[in-house]
C-alpha cells in the first residue's frame, strides 16, 4: 500500500540501520532496534509453509536478544566471519495508526576469515513495525529463509 514518503523513509532507515548494525559487528546495538516484547524468529520457508513452529531461532522478548549477543560474544565458539546484507523491495502491506506490516527481501553473504565468500542466506523479512516516541522499532521480525540448508552454523543473526 502507498504510505506517505516520511513513513516509508523511516521504515527503510530502520532496515538500513538493522543491516549495518549487524554487518559492522555492532551486535550490542542490535536488540535496541526491537520493542521490549518483540518477536524475532528465524525459520525456513518450508517450516513456515507447513505451519511448523520450530526453526533456527525463536526469541519472544528483547532480553532474549541480549542473551544471544552475550552468548555469541562470551560463550559460543565459531570461526571469525562477517555478513553483508543486501536489502530490496520494501512492500508495506498494512498501515494503521502507529503500526505497519512490511515485507522485504534480503540476501546475506557470509565472508570467512580466509576470504571464502558464500551466498549464505536469502529470503524474506516479515515485519511488524511499531512507531514509538523513540522512532520506529521492530515489534516482530520473522526471517523466512529460502535456503533450506544452513552451511556449517548460524551464529550471527540474519
Amino acid at each position, binding site marked *: 500500500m502507498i504510505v506517505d514518503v516520511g513513513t516509508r523513509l523511516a521504515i527503510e532507515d530502520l532496515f538500513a540501520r538493522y543491516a549495518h548494525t549487524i554487518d559492522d559487528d555492532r551486535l550490542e546495538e542490535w536488540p535496541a532496534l526491537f520493542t521490549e516484547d518483540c518477536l524475532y524468529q528465524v525459520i525456513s520457508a518450508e517450516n513456515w509453509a507447513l505451519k*511448523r513452529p520450530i526453526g533456527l531461532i525463536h526469541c519472544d522478548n528483547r532480553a*532474549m536478544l541480549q542473551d544471544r549477543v*552475550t552468548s555469541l560474544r562470551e*560463550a559460543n*565458539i565459531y570461526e571469525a566471519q562477517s555478513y553483508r546484507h543486501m536489502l530490496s523491495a520494501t512492500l508495506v502491506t498494512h498501515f494503521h495508526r502507529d503500526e505497519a506490516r512490511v515485507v522485504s527481501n534480503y540476501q546475506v553473504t557470509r565472508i570467512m576469515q580466509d576470504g571464502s565468500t558464500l551466498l549464505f542466506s536469502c529470503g524474506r523479512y516479515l515485519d511488524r513495525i511499531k512507531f514509538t516516541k523513540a522512532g520506529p522499532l521492530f515489534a516482530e521480525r520473522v526471517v523466512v529463509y529460502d535456503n533450506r540448508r544452513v552451511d556449517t552454523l*548460524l551464529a550471527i543473526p540474519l
Partner: protein
Amino acid sequence: MDAPAFAWPAGGNTRVPYRVYTDAENHEREKAKIFAGPTWGFLCAATEIPEAGDYKTTFLGEVPVVVVRRKDGGINALVNRCSHRGSLVALKNQGNTGTSLTCVYHSWAFDLDGNLQGVPFRRGIEGKGGMPDSFDLKQHGLKRLRVEETCGLVFGSLSAEAPPLEEHIGELIGGRMQRVLGNRKLKVLGTTSQYLHNNWKLYVENTKDTYHASLLHSFFSTFKILRLTATGGIHVSEGGGNHASHSRNKQDTDGGEYVGLRSAIDGFGLQDASIFGARDEFGDGITVQILSVFPNFILQQVHNSIALRQVLPKGVDETELLWTFLGFEDDDAEMQRMRLKQANLVGPAGYISMEDGCVGGWVQRAIQGSEADDSVVEMGGAGHASSDSRVSEASVRGFWNQYRETMGFAP
C-alpha cells in the same frame, strides 16, 4: 573391495587413523559394508506420512530412498531409482503419490510395493519398436528395503543379514529410547538441514563424545547453568555402536574443576531465564540424554527439546545433518511453548550445539596431509563398557569397535 583400504594401527579402539575420514576407497567400502550392510538407517517418523500414498524422500547412507504409506496402513521403503535407466522417481521432499509412483523420464509406472506395472509403448507402435517379448515386468521393480518401526520411528535396511531392528538397537539402548518416545503419538514441530564440511563419522563421534560437552560448549558454564559435577553416565551397547549418555543437573555453583578454563568466565547471567523453564517430562530428573544407533541415527532430549538427527554422508568430506524436532500430540500449550523456546539450545544456531557444526570441519581441514597419523581416544581407558563417568570417550571407542567389525578391519 574385499580387504580394507588400509590397516588399522596398533592400539585397538584407542587409535583412529585419520585416513578413515579422507580415504575415497574406504568411503566406497562404507557404502557396501555399512550402509548397505547389516545395519539399519532411520528414514522418517511414521507420523510424517499419515495417509495412504503419502511419501517422503530421504537417504540410507547416500542411497536415495522413498518412504511411502500403503493402502493397508503399512509402510514401504523403496530405492528412489528407476529400474529403467536410473532416474529419480519421486522428486519432491514429500507429497502424496496416490496408488502408484511414475518415473517422469519415460513414464514407467510402479505400484507402492515397487512392482513395475506398465511400460509405455511396450508393444511398440504399429508393430515397430517396443520391448522384446522376453521382457518380464516382474524382474524390473524398484528395489525394496526391509522396513521396521520402533517408537513411531521408521528404519530401513538394504541387508537381509541385518538382525531385526530391536536386536540391532538392543534392550539397553532401546529402553533409553522408550524412555523419551514411549508409545506416545509423535508430532513433527519442524525440520532443519545443516551442511557440514567434514566426514560423517566426525559428527557421529562428536555426539558420542561426552568429554567435550562442558569444554567446547561453554554456554551452560558461562551462564552458570550446569557443571560436570552433575551426575550422569553413559550406556554403551555390547558391540559398541549404540549409546545413550545422560546427565542430571544438580545446579550447583562451586565448579572448582573449571578454574583456569575458558568456560569459567564470571559475571554473566541470563536476562531471560524462560529458556530453562523446563518440565521434568519423564519424571526421572534427567535433563539431557543423547542416544545413538549405529551407524548414523541420533535421538536427543535436551530438557524438553526432543529431536532426531540423521547424519548423511555426501561424499567422503561432506555431510548433511537433518534435524527433526518433535513434540507429542498430547502436549499442552505450555509444553509446546517450552519446546519452542528450548529449541534455541540446539540445531545449527543452538547455544549448546552450534560449535558441533564447525568442529568437525576443523578436524577435516587439519588432518589434510597427516593421513598416516592417528587420533588418540584414551580418556577413560581402552574399553567401551557403560560407565557412570562422562569424562570418558568410551562410547567413541564403542563406535570404532562396531565400525571396525562391520568394515572388516582386523582387531
